[in-house]
């Protein structure tokens, strides 16, 4: 490419099989589709609103470590059929907020909370914690596959479900099927199907992260939490995973924390901007990125601070 011409603007990822787009978009060589004309996009927004269902709701959530409140009075919905991105500078509390959704904050001694977080209407602190975590799965920043085979990794959560006294079996036809399905949803199946007994740690970084996503998807969670999943990966793996995240939208509610604004623009439907623990602005991604209502949001997106 001619270095004097500016690179194409970042556009939202639109999938080829997206039913709301009339023609399949052409890609321009780095996996990012050009934006469809505005009217179609507006149609798409209107149509998807009818399909969304609220999965989780945060109401006036406060979170603290020790005496310091790191998340202050945040209220957000998490809906199925859409990707919610939490953006903000370091220390804005977005990761803490994410981890509170599956109660991982409790692992740290001295954690405190106030407010309500509900999953399908039930307060999550009244649910059994492992049951909650099976319904709300998490993928971490660094890929962390277990030192086992690929199959054992993906089938892990399913194999470890409570058996109520029945014998636990590691390999059953149901588990194998579920594992294969999860690997397909994560876009990894074709690459590893020949030998699922291979050690998971031999995969490349991008493959390992997709394996972790498959592992999280295997138990068919209702919500998928992603904590900066691509920050440790190269651009090509990042693009693959971003495609995959958008594709998952239909079946799971996705919440993704990212400090990469372009990534948020590419994948998210709704964006929540947090600063120093407070929710500064929440809205549809086009609105946040093109017409932010709050000055601080405008500053962050414009790169005044980072």
């Amino acid at each position, binding site marked *: 490419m001619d270095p004097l011409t500016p690179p194409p603007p970042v556009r939202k990822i639109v999938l080829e099989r997206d039913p709301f787009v009339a023609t399949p978009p052409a890609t321009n060589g780095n996996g990012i589709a050009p934006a469809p004309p505005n009217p179609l996009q507006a149609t798409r927004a209107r149509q998807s609103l009818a399909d969304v269902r609220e999965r989780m709701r945060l109401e006036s959530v406060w979170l603290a470590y020790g005496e310091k409140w790191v998340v202050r009075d945040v209220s957000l919905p998490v809906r199925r059929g859409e990707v919610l991105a939490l953006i903000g500078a370091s220390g804005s509390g977005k990761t803490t907020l994410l981890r509170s959704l*599956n109660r*991982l904050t409790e*692992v740290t001694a001295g954690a405190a909370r106030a407010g309500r977080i509900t999953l399908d209407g039930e307060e999550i602190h009244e649910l059994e*914690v*492992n*049951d*909650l*975590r*099976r319904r709300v*799965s*998490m993928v*971490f920043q*660094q890929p*962390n596959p*277990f*030192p*086992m*085979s690929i199959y054992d990794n993906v089938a*892990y*959560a399913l194999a*470890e479900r409570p058996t109520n006294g029945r014998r636990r079996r590691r390999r059953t036809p149901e588990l194998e099927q579920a594992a294969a399905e999860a690997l397909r949803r994560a876009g990894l199946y074709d690459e590893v199907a020949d030998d699922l007994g291979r*050690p998971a*740690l031999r995969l490349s970084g991008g493959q390992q992260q997709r394996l*972790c996503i498959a*592992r*999280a998807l295997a*138990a068919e969670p209702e919500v998928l939490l992603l904590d900066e999943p691509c920050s440790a990966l190269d651009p090509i793996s990042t693009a693959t995973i971003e495609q995959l995240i958008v594709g998952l939208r239909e079946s799971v509610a996705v919440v993704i924390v990212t400090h990469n604004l372009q990534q948020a623009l590419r994948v998210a439907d709704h964006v929540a901007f947090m600063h120093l623990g407070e929710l500064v602005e929440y809205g549809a991604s086009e609105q946040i990125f093109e017409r932010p209502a709050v000055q601080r949001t405008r500053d962050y997106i414009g790169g005044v601070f980072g």
Partner: protein
Amino acid sequence: MRTDQRAERALGALAVIVLLLIAAMAVTVFGKAWPSFSHNGLSWFGSGGDVDTQLRAMEQASPLAGHSLYYFRAWPLLWGTLVTTVLAVVIALVVSILAAVFLTEFAPATMRRTLDPVIRLLAAVPSVIYGLIGILAIAPYINDHLISNARKASVGYVVQLNGADVATATVILAVMITPIMVALIAAALATVPRSWREGSAALGVNRWRTIIRVSLRTARPAIVAATVLATARALGEAIMLSMVSGGRGFAANPLDGITFLFEPVRPLAATIVQNAEGLTIPVLAHTIYAVAAVLLVSAAMLSLAGWAAKQPLKRYGIRA
């Protein structure tokens, strides 16, 4: 550079002396042991009479009827060693894994601070003190409270039960080898990466199942290594066992049921200690060296087994 080369040669020579030492040890022990093996053939390992009688015959230089002076059937000793070692290692393995898991996962900070010196203390106690406690406190207790007179009568025609037996020996041996196993396994458990444990928790797996499927799997090379080390230690334990396992070279009979646990045994190493005075008598010396040769070979095979068992796990990213 001349001084450097001289120093290198000197130090190298010292290191080679160590090599020669172990080579010499192997050669001499096997050399001295050969007559006993050659006279008895493979039935050296078989059973055929009372070991003590055979040893006494060698001492008094009067061969038993119909046999040569070298006649020796070591099976009761081998069986005694096998029983005490295997039982003690199995008990110690279970206890050590539980204790190591407790130490690294469940123990509150105060308990962890106390257990650390407790385990080091148990490892430091000399074997003669374990033997003393065994023979002066535990054996009489077992004799008085756990072995009924009826039980004694049931085997009285063959052997006397007096509390110095398989059970006492195994339990004390297990206590002796547990600390080192706990130390090795706990050290390995502590190095399990936090990301794996967090990842497992985030998938909705409780702490116990995480320990079983992730932490213990990661610690498996250490568990294997600890077992090998503990078995070697148990094999070589002579003093404590010679004090509490019963003075008879008797093959405890598992068909006796529970009484089996209360019958005396004499493991290999203890035999060497108890017959050490007789080493001036050539025939007896050859027999004892034969026993030592068996011990040496077992120790060497254990090291090999430990090394081989660690290999397959390397491919899954578990660093041994």
